[in-house]
């Protein structure tokens, strides 16, 4: 399927997050998730915000840091096979616009969730834990690091 590719981009996974409108779609999807949670009657607003941040952070950890390779056959001869999606973005260049956006978003969500939960202790602990789960693996120092050989191959 990839001989018909006219362009030479080796791994489209590296650049599609820079396309027009992706960041906006990301934020829209987040709001859609939040509204779905808000519309369930037994969930109060603080719980809804905590649930939104938790679900977002856990899903983003899974998608960005656990899943490796790309969902199509790349023309880079398997170079991206061992890299997670986060490491493939922009071919490994750090501190690009997309990376900064994705790093800031969990932090902003944490602020919003802390505000709406009125700084309650339980909510704070949960939000902080998931925020760290989402933000810490994105540090450049953890590029290519697999702790305790988990997820190495």
């Amino acid at each position: 399927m990839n001989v018909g590719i006219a362009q030479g981009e080796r791994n489209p996974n590296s650049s599609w997050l820079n396309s027009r409108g992706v960041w906006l779609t990301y934020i829209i999807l987040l709001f859609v998730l939040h509204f779905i949670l808000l519309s369930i009657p037994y969930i109060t607003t603080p719980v809804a915000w905590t649930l939104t941040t938790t679900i977002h952070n856990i899903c983003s950890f899974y998608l960005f840091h656990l899943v490796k390779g790309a969902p199509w056959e790349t023309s880079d001869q398997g170079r991206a096979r061992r890299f997670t999606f986060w490491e493939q973005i922009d071919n490994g260049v750090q501190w690009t616009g997309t990376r900064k956006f994705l790093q800031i978003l969990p932090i902003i969500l944490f602020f919003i969730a802390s505000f709406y939960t009125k700084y309650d202790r339980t909510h704070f602990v949960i939000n902080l834990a998931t925020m760290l789960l989402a933000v810490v693996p994105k540090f450049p120092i953890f590029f290519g690091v697999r702790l305790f050989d988990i997820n190495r191959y």
Partner: protein
Amino acid sequence: MLASSSSKLSHATLVHRYPPSKLHSEEEMSDTVFSSDENEMNYKRENVTHKDDENLQCEEFEETPLYAAILTYLSYAILCLFGWLRDFLRNSNIEKKRGAVDPNAALGFVPLYQSYESFYTRNMYTRVRDIFNRPIASVPGAQFELTERISDDYNWTYRYTGKTINAINLGSYNYLGFAEKSGPCATDAINALKTYGVSSCNTRIELGTQRYHVELEQLLANFLHVESSIAFGMGFATNALNIPAVASKGDLILSDEMNHISLILGMRLSGASYQTFAHNDMKDLEAKLRAAIVHGHPRTQRPWKKIIIVVEGVYSMEGSICRLPELIALKKKYKAYLYMDEAHSVGAMGKNGRGIMDYFGIDANDVDILMGTFTKSFGSAGGYIAGKKSLIDHIRVNSHANTYASSMSAPVVQQIISSLQLLKRPEGQKRICQLADNTRYFRQKLVDMGFIVYGNKNSPVVPMLIYMPARVTRFNREMLRRGIAVVTVGFPATKLLDARVRFCISAAHTRQMLDTALMAIDEIGTDISLRYSTRHQSRRLREL
């Protein structure tokens, strides 16, 4: 005088068409700035050739509307969700696995493939696989026969009913209409087969060079107004194996972003360093040229042995044309070499069909290495390199395609020779004019209807953007239902957002065929809302 007055006319229509509030490309900016008549006269007097170039280079790449982008991402997100669901069902044996399964994985061997690698193929491509790779049952001319195939299990397997569908062919590269099974070229090719046999089965340097190869190369050199040329059996291999013959370690290759994979393979094989510059962006290219000359190699700072700029004449996915006058100016200023791949433009562009140089009116000796293929415009197969005799002699000795590949077979060569000779006669000129006429008519109608069409208004490759995967599929199937076969391309052949349908106009298309196609596109475009353009008012075909 004639040229400037015709360019004045087309300039006037340009002003008419693009409202000044929605400008994006530089060409349009300069055209509407000088919109009043006095200014137009002044501009015309100052630099007429520049304005001619402006009109030849009139390209449009309208930006993706935001709502279309968001809906496209949402479509892919929903497809992903369903993909995960189906994968889960398949892995937990609730649903049968229909794809190929590695038999050794169950026996405890390390799996050969990662199942995530085929996620896209399983869950998105296979679901709509019937719109791609359709087998055909006749020569791919302007109208052809498609074999009808029906799938009972959602495109995992097909069964052939035995019937064929007659359809208008808007997908094959057949720019001058030479893909026909009867006619002077076909008769000549059959006679050549009877005279010379199928193939000499030998390489060009041993016993493979026959008189028809020499004749073809001479004819081609005369046609292109160059000193010498050499032909190969495969167009892809021409690029991939000849760039290593002219470039090597220590050289720098600057290639356009949208170059074909054969050029990129050639660049990688050659061992030279390569950088890409933004598509058709001459400022970016100049900046990179200057940086390369000033800084040299990245680590050692030694000067580059030579710098080669690789561009294509007409880009097949975008429909844009390279900016040849500016490239020649840059090349001469910085003493770089230019390699131009005219796969889609030789035969199709220019007054005499000689390609982009004919289109811009530039001397063929300005481009150092001219490459082209015979597949698209000459109804044959193979590729060629043309240029100075010293270059071609070097390639004859040093190119892998010449020394290790078997020579072109006789009927293939005869088809090219016959079509080249036909192009010199009035009948050939008629074909070239018909192609240009068809191209401009089709493009103008599409743009007037409000669809987003990329590329230069004179390029016979017409990409129309559809963006969403479901709309791409629906468009393709609806067109086939109306008897028109089109080629739709999506991710990963194009960028994630820019799924499109690519029409290839041919000289063999009659006005009625194009009108049928336009009516069908108009209907389907209204049904599934494909009129994304904000620059052009969307109108129905009956209002035009």
